[in-house]
């Protein structure tokens, strides 16, 4: 790789320059190397889709669409319906979002509006600490400490709510267990808070200062300014952030596998045991040496992959659009 010492024009940067004969081999080689590294992403994604789908075809062929989407899961009798797990995934993620949304947006607003610049650094470090705790440690703490402690709390809530019409369908019922949908949802909420908070902060930061100051100039209190200036600008971006959190919550495996109770059930009682897609894959994969069983688990992996890709795509699109729109104004 030698420097071209001629006085001629240097090779410009910018859009991909057509490879001309004057470019040294090493330079072209480097470009190809970089391109292949980039393409690896697409290759891996395609391979994931293809290889996992091909391994799960026996599930679809043996059960058919009605079998795959049935509510019955009974490996002893070769019945592999995925609905209880889809339900569990959706419910635990919903609980996580409902809890994490106000908390994360609250913290994001705290950091951008309330706390002076100097102090926001340590708070951000604390949030990062939350992100650094591995999922398996959350699960360990959840199953050994949190679930037993929560069991008695759930029990009191459930007995207190007997007979109350709407609430008891969610928070009442038999078979109250510390290891349940709600506990899993709680831990998920804690785990997705860092990502939703940091993305919300990014989105809120794009709100033009003019709008903020204009609101203050009109005599608004901080809360009114947030309602009137920040929220309209950042609302779709925050929705995108929440969607990303949802995607993360749906895919979270280990913490949920440990605290959800491992019982494929479809019920509205949140304080009872349940199951979710990634949990059943993690827990039962060692068992699944029979063809259709394994295909069913891999098939659920495919379902999970497709779901999280769709959610991530929409989230990125929404966040991207809102950031662009805010930046353009």
């Amino acid at each position, binding site marked *: 790789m030698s420097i071209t010492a001629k006085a001629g024009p240097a090779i410009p940067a910018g859009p991909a320059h057509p490879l001309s004969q004057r470019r040294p081999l090493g330079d072209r080689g480097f470009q190809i190397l970089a391109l292949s590294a980039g393409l690896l992403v697409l290759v891996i994604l395609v391979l994931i889709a293809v290889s996992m789908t091909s391994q799960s075809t026996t599930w679809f062929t043996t059960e058919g669409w009605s079998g795959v989407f049935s509510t019955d899961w009974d490996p002893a009798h070769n019945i592999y319906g995925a609905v209880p797990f889809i339900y569990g995934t959706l419910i635990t993620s919903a609980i996580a979002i409902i809890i994490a949304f106000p908390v994360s947006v609250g913290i994001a607003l705290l950091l951008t509006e309330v706390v002076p610049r100097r102090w926001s650094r340590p708070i951000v470090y604390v949030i990062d600490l939350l992100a650094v705790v591995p999922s398996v440690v959350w699960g360990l703490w959840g199953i050994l400490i949190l679930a037993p402690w929560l069991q008695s709390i759930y029990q009191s809530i459930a007995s207190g709510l007997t007979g109350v019409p709407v609430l008891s369908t969610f928070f009442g019922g038999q078979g109250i267990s510390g290891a349940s949908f709600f506990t899993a949802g709680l831990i998920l909420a804690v785990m997705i808070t860092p990502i939703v908070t940091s993305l919300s902060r990014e989105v809120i930061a794009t709100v033009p200062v003019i709008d903020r100051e204009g609101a203050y100039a009109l005599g608004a209190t901080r809360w009114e300014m947030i309602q009137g200036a920040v929220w309209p600008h950042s609302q779709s971006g925050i929705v995108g952030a929440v969607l990303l959190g949802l995607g993360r919550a749906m895919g979270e495996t280990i913490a949920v596998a440990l605290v959800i109770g491992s019982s494929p059930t479809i019920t509205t009682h949140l304080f009872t*045991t349940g199951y979710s897609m990634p949990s059943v894959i993690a827990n039962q994969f060692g068992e699944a040496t029979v063809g259709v069983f394994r295909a069913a688990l891999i098939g659920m992996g495919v379902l999970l992959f497709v779901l999280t890709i769709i959610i991530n795509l929409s989230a990125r699109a929404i966040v991207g659009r809102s950031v662009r729109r805010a930046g353009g104004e």
Partner: protein
Amino acid sequence: MAIGLIAACMKRYTHKENPDMHLRGRKHVAAVGGAVAVALLAAACSSSSSSSSSSSSAAASSAPAAASSSPSVSGKINGAGSTFQLTFQQAAISAFKSTDPNITVNYDGVGSGSGRADLYAGTVNYAGSDSTIPTTEQPKLNGKKVLYFPVLIGPITLAYNLPGVSSLKLTPTLISEIFQAKITTWNNSAIAAVNPGVSLPSTPITLAVRSDSSGTTQNFTLFLQDAVGSAWTLGSSSTIKWPSTARAASGNGGVAQAVKSTTGAIGYVDYSTAEASGLTAASIENKAGQFVAPSITAASTAAAGVTIASNLTFHAVWDSTDPTAYPITYQTWDIVYAVQPNATDVSLLKAYLGFVLGSTGQALLEPLHYAPLPSNLDSMAVAQLSQITS
């Protein structure tokens, strides 16, 4: 490696060409990074062989064997399956290492069902299974003959977590109703009727069951089927569709942990695990109408006099009419193919199984809360060793 390339480039074109660039530390970072990378690669590629692996193929690598239990035999054998015998297997393997240091044995407690599946797939030399091979799995043997080597006897306890209730009596009917979620609170009148004088709390009953394919489940449900007949509707198999409010866990250990950490829980756990976890177990009514607490002597009594088939299979649950017998006593086997792929495997298996069935191996059982095999069964098993051929 690209890091090396970048490092090399940076080293060449630093100081002179880019005097303004902030270089302090960068070269060193690159050099250290490169060295670390090389060191990691070297360590990873080191040819020191792994000392054990549960998934390697059944064929062991070793020198030619002399006599069947000669210390000169060396190699590796793998087993997998029942968590009931897991604690014993771990103890036996480590004791065996002192008598036969050249033989490495590995046992993975994945549950009886998975252990058998591994045997069919050829990834293990022996499968630990608490039940005989079910008829649905017979085709997987491809006509090959298997030998059952009984290993130990033990009780299945009904372990429960009720602070303040130190002793509890249960009948098979009660157990059947509890595990079908027909009785849902501890102070139910049916339970109280059998336990006069015990103050039962109103805590709801949480069921702790197995999520994996388990021989313990199979024997427990077989007991219920034999004892209460058609009142037990969930059948008997290694995987059961438990009531939806049950909490499932993996392995006997998992169920024990679920019971231990949940007030009001009851689960079926093997005696060895229950004792080691410090759980309290209920006394169960046996065929003679007596309530017997789980113990090694009660288990041995239950197993004595059991009818043994010629292939050393038998059925200890709900069998004995002795008033001191524990009704949910079960057994576990190590299953091997009668015909092994090579002579080395034969010697290795004979060495290890001989140890397990011999006096040293069986002496390990009682301190671990297992019951040893009745002596007639043990002799039959040792005699069966000669049937392993290549």
